[in-house]
């Protein structure tokens, strides 16, 4: 389950960074796009927040969906591996029982 965790972790990191930038008031700096900077830093923070927002909106859900798909596939593989294991043990037990009956 390592890869799904990495994907989930990366998506969570993007969400957390976006939330932190929002709390820090970066969204207000986006007025620089309309030629109305709130401070000289707006020319950096405004476009940076727009980029970050687009990355979060576009990429983070993709990573999350990919992580869920991956996790489901891994889970399914583990369940089926367990079923295979139980089937193999059952067949071995039957073979042993058959051997005992023959003896």
């Amino acid at each position, binding site marked *: 389950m390592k890869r799904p965790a990495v994907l989930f972790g990366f998506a969570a990191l993007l969400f957390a960074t976006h939330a932190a930038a929002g709390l820090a008031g970066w969204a207000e700096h986006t007025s620089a*796009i309309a030629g109305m900077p709130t401070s000289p830093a707006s020319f950096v923070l*405004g476009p940076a927040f727009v980029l970050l927002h687009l990355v979060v909106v576009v990429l983070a859900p993709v990573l999350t969906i990919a992580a869920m798909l991956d996790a489901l596939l891994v889970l399914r593989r583990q369940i089926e*591996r367990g*079923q295979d294991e139980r089937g193999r043990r059952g067949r071995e037990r039957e073979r042993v029982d058959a051997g005992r009956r023959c003896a």
Partner: protein
Amino acid sequence: MQDLQRALSAGSSCTRMKRVPLALLLTVAAIAWLPSLHLFHVPDHEAIASRLAAGQIARPVPPAGTMRAVNPEWDFMRRTYVVLALANRALAHPTEHARSLAAIDAIVDSTLTLARDNGDEHFMLAYAKRGPFADPDAQSLFIDGEIVMMIAARDLVEPRAETRDEARVRARRIERAMRASPSLSGESYPDECWTFCNTTALAGLVLLDRASGSHDHAQLAKDWVAHAKTNLVEPRTGLLVSSYTWNGQVLDGPEGSSLWMSAHNLLVVDEDFARDQYERARRELGASFLGFGWAREWPAGTPQRADVDSGPIVPLLDASAGSSGLAILGASAFGDRRFRNELLASLELTGFREKTTGRHRASNDVGDAVVLYALSFGPLWDHARRPPDHAALVDVRGLR
């Protein structure tokens, strides 16, 4: 995809199954997510319009120092769009009628006072003073046209005697300036005529005629359209050019930030020509992808340079903030719901709207005023195109 199907359909052999490649997983996830992204950006249009209108009614003339420092025109245009929006809302929402009219009056009075005390240049870019107008008797059609439009819109909702003379004086000035020009157009700046301003002035005159029950300016409107079809249309696209000299020499070709508004204006001047311009603009400038819409400032094949009207232009997409914002108005005016919703989805994605006020952080007051007007559009233009109510006209003309 085959890998994924193989992975999903693998039965007991799954113990030997390889992991699905990451690139494949990301592709499948992107295919699932991206087409549905716009569904998460469908705002409640009426709620946004109500909040924006409430803000304008509460403070019809807000401080505009920051905006004026960038572009004094925005201060003026904000006033026009707010007046048009509130006039529409006054007609559509009887409960807002009185408050909307009070706000309109405050805006008009403040505008007239500032223009009288400081001159038209108060609302114009610095190059208004670079030299004399080609027509020595003219004043800026940009200012006269929008003031007439504001007063006429107010009068169409409910006549107001105090501003009637002001509108008549400016209307006479517009007609004289347009008739005196070889391009049948008034100058907004010295030797610079704008399609945006001339169509706004014509629409203002039509609204004024409608409010007073006259047809005083119908012939001017007809003549201008005939002249524009022959002389102000770019041959390649069939779109109206945006600016030209007093003599009619083209300065700038078609621009989105001018065209959407011009087509909207022409709806009350010549509906067939207006629809033709909108459809051409939609084809040449409009773009959509995955439920999001945007508009270019310049037609394809023209260098995409950003200026004070276009706002920033997004590379690769050629999306212009100014053109896309005014395209919302165009799409609303021409009933193009799909494109309007796509444009509003883009605005919701990138505008960073404040939930409580409806204002967009990535925009400014004039941008929000355009959005408010676009979302309120309808009743005023419908009213302007309806046959006049004679009882009301008697009152407007002061005959009663």
